[in-house]
């Protein structure tokens, strides 16, 4: 994304682009661990969706379908809250995207 120069910015450092935080891919915050979805164990209780502090659990037609790694910061809360056994969400190593 091209960065604006100081003469192009709206005055007072206001942000007039409502909802533009979607453009900021905060998934780069992850520090080497990511949740991985195992669909075969999932009961679609959506605890993961409720507890995810971001908006990284993808739900379609009432069902958990996957993880949006553009925003997932790898906090692991979803894997802790996941009630299934074995877990349908597990933390696994990933290469750091530097």
């Amino acid at each position, binding site marked *: 994304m091209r960065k604006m120069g100081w003469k192009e910015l709206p005055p*007072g*450092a*206001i942000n007039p682009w409502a909802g533009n935080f979607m453009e900021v891919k905060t998934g780069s915050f992850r520090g080497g661990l990511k949740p991985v979805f195992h669909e075969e164990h999932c009961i679609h209780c959506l605890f993961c969706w409720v507890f995810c502090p971001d908006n990284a659990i993808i739900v379609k037609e009432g069902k958990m379908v996957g993880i949006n790694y553009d925003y997932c910061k790898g906090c692991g809360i979803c894997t802790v809250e996941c009630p299934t056994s074995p877990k349908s969400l597990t933390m696994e190593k990933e290469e750091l995207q530097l």
Partner: protein
Amino acid sequence: MAERRILNGNAAIAEAIRQINPDVVAAYPITPSTAIVEYIAKFVADGLMTTEFVTPESEHSAMSMCIGSSAAGARVFTATASQGLALMFEMLYIASSLRLPIVAGIANRALSAPINIHGDHSDTMGARDSGWIQIYSENSQEAYDNVIQAFRIGEHRDVSTPVMVGMDGFILSHAVQDMLVEEDDKVKAFVRERNPLYSILDVDNPITVGPIDFTDYYFEHKRSQFVGMENAPEVILEVAEEFKKEFGREYGFFELYKMDDAEVAIVLLGSTAGTAKEVVDELREKGRKVGLVKIRVYRPFPAKELADVLSNLKAVAALDRAASPGAVGGPLFTDLRASLYEYEKRPIIVDYIYGLGGRDIAPKHIAEVYERLEKIAATGERGELIGYINLRE
């Protein structure tokens, strides 16, 4: 018709605010500016103002409320002094960087410790890098006139920058003076309505005010903020011109007193100008070529205009009513000296720190400064760079 009144500086500023009737006043009382807030509270209680008058729990909260109100498009005023302004410090920067044209009346007072309630410029000088426009007053009339002009200057869309109007604590805030209060309608017409750059209440155009910037945008946002200050000089002169047309009193970046053929001059700000003018008159009667420059607008600093006036003099003294420990001199001195650096021909310049904590400065002290300047002019020998007036060894 303008009405001739006997008012102290606090009452003069409160009168201006009664006439302007801002949307919001949020202020916390502190000596010596308390009376401004008391007068406003009474005006509101008596039904003379429709202002939303808020009494927060501290100056920090007062400035925070001013910021929120101003971001909603309101016209906002506050008053404070000394520790109160110091407590506002972090919010001052937020007000200026959000480009919110809040007007603050300051009864200039020393900063602790030791605790002292009397007048000096330490409070506003401490805020000189906060991005606020700073205007200083010599008397009640100027405090009144400056507050009226401050709304027009700050709220001008090209400026959109907060303005603090200073007057010396007690010397001006509590001393009654003969002055003119203009007609309510004329003042209201002069200040017009505020036309804000943006408003958080504009639901058709939703915005975020005060979001976070990392290393990628903070610098650009800061640079864009400075545009307001850069546009201020032109607007200050425009507003002064219109003020003169409407009310007859003349203002600029500074006032020149008997400078036409002066060889030496004192440069200062605030109420001491009144004392210095007396001294200049006396010395002029004796044929001595002395003059005075009273700075009205300290931020933005009128560097070129001042240097144009001073560069042909032989010796100049800056009188600083605030100290800047460890610096090359007081704040006025360092600004002045830096301004003159652009000129090949420039006067010898010295600094005096004076009046801290309300210490008196008498005509004889100012006469002594002129005497020294004349000696410097005659010999070319500067001597000590920084002196102290009326200080016991």
